């Protein structure tokens, strides 16, 4: 039994849910899969006066791919994303990351993509992948809608990505070109542990091994995932050589001006290992087409 008392509301429609959110404001705790919220309630880490259970809202469970855009309702589970033929075909990096989310199938069966974004925890695997892909979050409140790049959303409001009364409705990702390669390289102690550093990248590599375009982000190393724009422009247009990999690692370390220090790793270690993971990620993109979509 959770210690702190709260009321429980289960809206039947998105409109009703947004109205409840507006009514209760910051006193409300929003629950979809509950994988983030319920343990925090049990620990007493959060004490909302009302839980708004959006776990049955049909409006938030869509998954479609249309005209080069993959759109996911915020309530789509990690399991569905990992297994969806559409996501695997058009957005392999995201499907791959969803299948790697720790805590076992139980967590992937229940946890949702919107919940991960709302939690804005730097140790969560999805976030660098979403930032690398330039994904957009669509937010709604009782009064307005807005679309915002997930990178900006996380930067603007960390550790709470949303304004009171606001709900993540959908996530959209421009589907990369066919044949794009992707990889997600991460360092953690074991499955289910928090991320120490993760590097997500998606790239177009031509037959001669020249990187035509590259999207790259690093997670776990800073409060919010960092798009590695300097590394992207350093590498794009070139074939991968050992010298280029070393330069990319150096550029990554330079980009991490103030890496996180915590019980798992200090900042200097994170900076060092981030460079190594970038080399590994770029190397694996160049070496194989194992991750090609």
């Amino acid at each position, binding site marked *: 039994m959770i210690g702190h008392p709260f009321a429980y509301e289960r809206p039947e429609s998105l409109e009703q849910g947004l109205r409840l959110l507006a009514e209760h404001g910051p006193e409300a705790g929003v629950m979809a899969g509950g994988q983030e919220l319920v*343990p925090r309630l049990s620990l007493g880490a959060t004490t909302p006066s009302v*839980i708004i259970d959006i776990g049955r809202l049909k409006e938030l469970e869509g998954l479609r791919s249309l005209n080069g855009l993959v759109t996911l309702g915020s309530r789509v589970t990690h399991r569905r994303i990992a297994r969806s033929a559409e996501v695997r075909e058009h957005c392999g990096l995201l499907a791959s990351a969803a299948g790697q989310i720790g*805590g076992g199938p139980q967590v992937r069966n229940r946890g949702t993509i919107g919940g991960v974004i709302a939690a804005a925890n730097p140790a969560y695997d999805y976030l660098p992948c979403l930032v690398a892909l330039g994904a957009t979050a669509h937010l709604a409140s009782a009064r307005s809608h807005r679309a915002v790049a997930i990178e900006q959303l996380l930067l603007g409001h960390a550790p709470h990505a949303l304004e009171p009364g606001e709900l993540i409705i959908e996530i959209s990702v421009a589907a990369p070109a066919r044949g794009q390669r992707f990889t997600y390289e991460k360092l953690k102690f074991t499955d289910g542990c928090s991320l120490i550093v993760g590097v997500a990248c998606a790239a177009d590599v031509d037959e001669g091994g020249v990187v035509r375009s590259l999207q790259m982000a690093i997670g776990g190393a800073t409060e919010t995932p960092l798009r590695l724009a300097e590394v992207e422009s350093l590498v794009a247009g070139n074939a991968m050589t050992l010298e280029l990999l070393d330069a990319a690692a150096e550029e990554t370390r330079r980009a991490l001006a103030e890496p996180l220090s915590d019980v798992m790793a200090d900042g200097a270690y994170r900076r060092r290992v981030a460079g190594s993971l970038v080399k590994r990620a770029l190397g694996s993109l160049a070496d194989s087409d194992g991750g090609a979509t």
Partner: protein
Amino acid sequence: MSSHSIDLTVVVNGASHSLNIDTRMLLVDLVRDELDLTGTHIGCRTGHCGACTVVLDGEVVKSCTVLAASADGSEITTIEGVASDGELHPVQQAIWDEHGAQCGYCTPGMVLAAVELLAENASPTDDEIKSGLAGNLCRCTGYQNIVNAVRSASAP
């Protein structure tokens, strides 16, 4: 102000139950304390250990991460619902045969995770078995005999 209790109906191991519960109740508390199905264990209450695994509407979940209120209208299978007519489920029998349980605390959750794994992938590799059981912690066996048991319960 809304009430701090709620009426709900759940079907657990095929039997329907209608109750009035505290909104703070976790699904694991509902199963253990209200329905006396104590085969579902509590290890951590924070979603880490998997001892409280149950099947909720066809998918395994950690029942300490689910509010009982949100399970209203759902079908739940606990470890007590896995054997039928006094016959152990093949996964249970394999755990028995391979000595996959020592203290037994994690075993109900392991069994339910393994049943889902084999339902989706009848012949998993050892890596797939380990990945399928990654949400369940065991502090006795070193896992090897559990992996052996799931392998022996899988299709040849």
